C-alpha cells in the first residue's frame, strides 16, 4: 500500500528519529490510515530541533518529540496546542561489556560522575560519547548531568574523555562501539543496533532515565493552513485503546520485548508527573 494515493487530506507528522527508526510509526500510520481512509499521514523524521522548526513554520501539522523543556516552550509560544504524552520508555546507559569505569548497579547520576572521574584520569580507557546535537536524548543527558550537581558546560570541557558525536543515535552507538565508550541511548535504537555492536546495557530503569514521547498538534490559529482536525484525530488515535495496544505490542515480534510502554493504558512510571 502507498499512503501517497487514496487520501485526499494530508497530515504531516514531524517526528524525532528514534520513533521512526524503530518502525513504530509505520505501524501506527497503517492503522490510522485504515481507520481514516481519507487522511494521508506523512511522516517526516528529523532531529528534534528541525522537527520543531517544521512545526513552527507550519510545514508539519503535528510533532512527536521527547524533550519536555522544548515541548513546554512550544506550548508557551502558542504554537503547540497541548502536550499529549502517549508512550514512554527508559534510556539506557550503554557501555563496553568489561565496564572499565565499573558503573554497573549505580543510578544514572552516580554513573555519570564515575565515568567523568575515571575518564579524566584515564581517557584512553574511559570515554563518554555524547550525541551533542540538542536532541531529546541529548536534553535528557544534560538533565542527568544537572542531577549530578555538576555544571554541564564546564564538565564537557574537562578532557578528551567527553566526545561529542554531533550525530543521530544509531551513529553515536557505532562510535561508542568503535571507541568502546559509554553512551546514553534510547531503548528502541539500542535494541535495533544491538546485533551490530559489542556493547551492553549497563544501567536501565533509573528514575532520571525516563523518556516520555509526546504528541503536540500545531495551533492553526497561530500557524495558518495546518490540518488541526487530522492532527487531533491522530492524538485521539494514539491515546485510544487501539493505538495504545499497538504501542504495547510493538517490538515483541522483532526484539522479543516491548520497546515502548503505553502511557494512558499501561503502568505509569515512577514519579511521573
Amino acid at each position: 500500500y502507498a499512503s501517497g494515493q487514496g487520501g485526499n487530506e494530508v497530515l504531516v507528522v514531524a517526528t524525532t528519529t528514534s520513533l521512526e527508526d524503530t518502525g513504530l510509526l509505520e505501524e501506527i500510520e497503517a492503522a490510522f490510515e485504515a481507520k481514516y481512509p481519507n487522511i494521508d499521514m506523512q511522516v517526516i523524521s528529523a532531529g528534534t530541533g528541525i522537527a520543531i522548526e517544521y512545526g513552527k513554520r507550519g510545514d508539519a501539522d503535528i510533532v512527536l518529540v521527547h524533550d519536555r523543556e522544548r515541548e513546554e516552550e512550544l506550548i508557551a509560544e502558542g504554537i503547540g496546542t497541548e502536550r499529549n504524552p502517549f508512550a514512554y520508555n527508559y534510556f539506557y546507559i550503554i557501555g563496553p561489556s568489561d565496564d572499565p569505569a565499573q558503573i554497573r548497579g549505580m543510578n544514572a547520576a552516580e554513573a555519570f560522575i564515575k565515568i567523568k572521574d575515571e575518564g579524566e584520569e584515564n581517557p584512553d580507557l574511559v570515554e563518554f560519547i555524547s550525541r551533542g546535537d540538542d536532541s531529546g536524548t541529548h536534553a535528557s543527558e544534560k538533565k542527568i548531568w544537572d542531577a549530578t550537581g555538576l555544571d554541564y558546560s564546564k564538565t564537557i570541557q574537562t578532557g578528551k574523555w567527553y566526545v561529542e558525536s554531533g550525530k543521530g543515535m544509531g551513529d553515536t552507538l557505532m562510535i561508542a562501539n568503535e571507541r568502546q565508550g559509554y553512551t546514553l541511548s534510547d531503548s528502541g535504537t539500542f535494541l535495533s543496533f544491538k546485533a551490530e555492536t559489542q556493547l551492553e546495557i549497563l544501567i536501565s530503569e533509573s528514575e532520571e532515565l525516563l523518556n516520555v514521547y509526546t504528541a503536540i498538534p500545531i495551533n492553526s490559529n497561530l500557524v495558518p493552513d495546518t490540518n488541526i482536525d487530522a492532527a487531533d484525530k491522530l492524538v485521539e488515535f494514539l491515546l485510544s485503546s487501539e493505538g495504545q495496544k499497538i504501542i504495547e505490542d510493538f517490538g515483541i515480534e522483532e526484539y522479543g520485548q516491548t520497546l515502548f510502554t503505553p502511557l494512558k493504558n499501561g503502568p505509569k512510571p515512577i514519579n511521573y508527573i
Partner: protein
Amino acid sequence: MSEIIEGIYQAINLILTLNPEMLEITLRTIYISLSSTLFATIIGVPLGGLINFKTFKGKRGLVNIIQTLYSVPTVLVGLFVFLLISRAGILGELNLLFTPTGMILCQTILIMPILVGFTINALSGVEKNIEDLAMSLGANQFQTIYTIMKEAKYALMGAVILGFGRAISEVGVALLIGGNIRGFTRVITTTISLETSRGNIALSVALGIILMLIALVINLILNIIQEK
C-alpha cells in the same frame, strides 16, 4: 565484510521477488532524478552555450563562480529551497515542501552548476574554427551553438551523466525537502540512510547495489542516445 555478501544476496532477493514497495521506491527514484536531470539539462546546457559563446566583461569571473558552485553542499541548497517553499516562505502557497515536485525543483538547482560549468568546458574544447565553419555555411546563432554541441556531444553527455549521478545519489536534499515520506517522497538514498540509522547495514548495501544497477542501465541508455 560479511554484510557486503549478505547485501548482494539481499539485493538479488529484492530484485527477484519484485517487492512492490521496493519497486515503487525505485520508480520514484528514477522519476525524480531523471526529471531533475532533464530540467537541468534543458536550462543548463543552453545557458552554458550562451556563456561560452558570448564575450563579455566578467566572463572569467562568472565561470569561476559557477565552478565554485560545484562545492555547494546539498544541505545549503536544501535549506535555501526549504526557506523558499516552506509554508512560511515566499513560495509557501505552492505547497511544494515534502513533495516529489519540490525535490525535483531542488535537485535541478543543485545540479545546474555542473551542467552549466561542464557545458562551458565541453564547448570550449571544440575547435574555434568549427564555429566559423558553421556560421560560414549559413547557420544562425542557434544552429551554430547546436552544431558545436553536437561536436562536443561526448563531453556533454559526460556532464549530463554526472548531473544525473549527482541527483540520483544525493540524499541531503531528498531528506530535507522530500522528508523521506513513505509511499510519497521516499527514494533509494533516503531509504538507505533510514536503514543505516536502523542498523540494517546489509539492507543498505543491497539498496546501494540496486541504485548502482539503475544508474548503469540509465547510463547505457544515455550512451545509446549519444551514439545517434
